[in-house]
């Protein structure tokens, strides 16, 4: 089984209002050195390799990320194979 962590965030040019709300809440807890907060999604996949090569598995993950897990118009994704 291959475990893959996928991180999906809004593109930099999109206003991240949730990140902003979190950033503004942090001083209320007592820290005033947090300059920026980006809020995103974490998705974990468990994939059966079967007879696929590592290259093919990577292509599969990228296709999934591009087609379903993220909206490429407004989101970026990155993944790590654990």
């Amino acid at each position, binding site marked *: 089984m291959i475990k893959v962590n996928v991180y999906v965030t*809004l593109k930099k*040019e*999109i*206003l991240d*209002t*949730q990140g902003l*709300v979190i950033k503004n809440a942090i001083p209320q807890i007592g820290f005033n050195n947090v300059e920026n907060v980006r809020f995103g999604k974490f998705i974990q996949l468990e994939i059966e390799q079967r007879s696929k090569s590592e290259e093919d598995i990577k292509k599969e993950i990228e296709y999934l990320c591009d087609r*379903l*897990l993220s*909206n490429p*118009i*407004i989101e970026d994704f990155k993944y790590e194979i654990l």
Partner: protein
Amino acid sequence: MENIKKPVFGIIVFPGTNCEFDCYHALQNILGAECKFIWHNDKSAAGIDAIVLPGGFSYGDYLRSGAVAKFSPIMEYVRKFADRGKLIIGICNGFQILLEQGMLPGAMLRNNTLKFICKFIHTRVENSRTPFTCNLEKGHIIKIPIRHNEGNYYINEKGLAELEKNNQIILRYCSKDGVVSDEHNPNGAIGSIAGICNKEMNVFGLMPHPEACCENILGSNDGIGIFCSMIRSITGIRKWM
């Protein structure tokens, strides 16, 4: 009306859709058209003149609003229906599905207020030369409700210029007097855009709910104008109602 063939609206229903009965009531009971529900798992439907993708929370809005609905079997038929030049109206979640499907350009973000907004607003008709607004005049103000958390329409600069150039922006949020400004933009949508159509002008997506304002007892009957425009485009009858 006895000898006239009623236009048939196919209302697509996904798990989590909740506005299909309002659409049915508006189109069949108020406007006198014929409606059929089409279950999302069906591969096609017959005898449909126009498709409605209604509002709601298809697939619970999980992952992103409309993100999973685009893979339902019926969407292939919906795409081919559009390719044949037939009319499709996507309301709220329906608009989100059309965007995710790529049948309309751009994407939806969360409202910039981060709040679910449920209230009457006003929109201004920007283009009356479409099958969805042909019974209305350019500049006409529509009093219509919105109910959404993700209605902040986004498109990049190049895409926005294309929309403007091709007159694809159909409705903008405005004041009751038709003033378009940040103050009257409920969700931060770029250009105060409330509804757009594709280049071919047969697919229309809008965040406000015309099916929820076809009777004065509900606060407005301005929704009738949009549906009558569609019926006119289908039947050729200018004054259906």
